[in-house]
């Protein structure tokens, strides 16, 4: 399971950096850091997939909810870090963001994409899913994707944090994070992130966590330095 996550994240990271090379030929600076929490985070609940045996058998260890995923050293995973202000509008990546329904989970849990960037949604399971992005700014839709159905191709026209759910499998919750910038990253299991290829300028960096919401920090980039900024979220158990 973890290997799959890492593979998907690695693919995403590669896709992201390839795009940045395309938009900024010169190397630029790197903004990196770690996202952690203080306080007591909520306990993630185990998910009972007994009603969907084809998914249950894919998980050797029980799967839990993912709204607050923590790691050693108080690391916070699945935090979206992005340049929320100061970034010149970069061209939309032609490369599609990928979202998988696998083992009745969304992989990755949080998919980040740019406005108008193609998004491909796959059903890798031996069960039907319905994919229901609960958009408010963008149009809300709800489509069935049976076993073996081709991927759903779509785009989002406006920036928005969109919760995604499957009504058939009520434990399935994920996110489409649609941003105006291509300079974004998602924290890994160690809570670390890295945004590369940042040209000189003044920026606001925002870190967003689905339950603890957003924090911002201002940063000034002058050359090709690596700027380290950390975010600390105050966790509450509910």
């Amino acid at each position, binding site marked *: 399971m973890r290997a799959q996550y890492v593979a998907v994240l690695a693919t995403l990271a590669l896709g992201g950096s390839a795009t940045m090379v395309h938009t900024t030929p010169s190397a630029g600076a790197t903004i990196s850091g770690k996202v952690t929490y203080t306080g007591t985070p909520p306990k993630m609940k185990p998910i009972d997939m007994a009603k969907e045996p084809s998914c249950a058998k894919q998980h050797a260890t029980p799967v839990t909810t993912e709204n607050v995923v923590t790691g050693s050293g108080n690391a916070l995973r699945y935090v979206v870090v992005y340049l929320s202000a100061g970034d010149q509008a970069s061209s939309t990546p032609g490369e599609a963001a990928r979202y998988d329904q696998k083992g009745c989970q969304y992989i990755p849990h949080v998919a980040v994409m740019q406005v108008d960037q193609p998004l491909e949604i796959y059903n890798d399971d031996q069960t039907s899913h319905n994919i229901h992005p609960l958009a408010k700014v963008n149009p809300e839709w*709800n489509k069935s994707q049976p076993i073996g159905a081709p991927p759903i191709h779509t785009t989002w026209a406006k920036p928005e944090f969109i919760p995604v759910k499957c*009504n058939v499998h009520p434990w399935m919750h994920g996110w489409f994070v649609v941003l105006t910038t291509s300079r974004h990253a998602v924290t890994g299991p160690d809570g670390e992130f890295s945004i590369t290829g940042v040209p000189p300028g003044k920026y606001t960096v925002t870190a967003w966590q689905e339950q603890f919401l957003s924090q911002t920090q201002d940063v000034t980039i002058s050359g090709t330095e690596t700027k380290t900024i950390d975010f600390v979220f105050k966790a509450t158990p509910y």
Partner: protein
Amino acid sequence: MRLHARVVALVSGLTVLLSAAGAAAGWAQESHIGSLTGHAAAGKKVYRRYCILCHGPDGDGNGENALWIDPKPRDFTLAVFKCRSTPSGTLPTDQDVFDAMTRGFVTTNMPAWLPLTHQNRADAVAYIKTFSPKWSSLKPGAPITIPPEPAATIESMLRGRGLFQKMECWKCHGPAGHGDGQSAKTLTDNKENPIPPYNFSTGSRFKCGATNRDLYRIFMTGLDGTPMPSFADDLKPADAWDLVHFLRTLQPLDTPEAAIWKAWLASHARDLKPIGPPGGGQ
């Protein structure tokens, strides 16, 4: 009496507020229903007389009655509508909203607004469209094409039954269509309110109509805002008609489909594999 007076006072107070807001926004919204043109300004009066107590002064479904109503009144600020002729994720046509208002929503508190004139209803549609900026920035979707209905044969019904199994309709609607599938109790709408799947054994009208064409449209467009998805990407028109024919056999109605089904079933009941999870139907 005292309550009534308060309601009147509140409503007139809100009228003043809304008029001011409306003037500032410069509403010029229209609706087009056949040869009729509806106007938002006139629709506002209709809305404030007939709709406001449930749908609320701001159209967000938080009218005074909303607390006592289940399912909740539609929130027009989201511009998400169940009954459409257009694909999932697109705005309905004016005619779709007009038809929903005219038909009402069976099993809910939304009555059929037949007592209102056609012009009144067209005007109300125009006014409803002022509650979301999506009506200015987006165009309604193109209505889906529904080919003429082929003959309802036993072969068509059996193919439809296969699709009911394959598309996993039974996960929510239940193996016999009783609305008791394994996911039924967990379903919520886009506001996280519980919502039951349609129970075919009640024989009641569907929320979005009563005809075979309505039924076709329901699962091919999906009921946006609810757990019912669109199957347009998964079913060809011929498949969709097969499914319609089978679904009719689940209702306790004297439909032509039911007669053919019953006659066939009398001698073939044993040939049917149970519907439900592989390796054992419910």
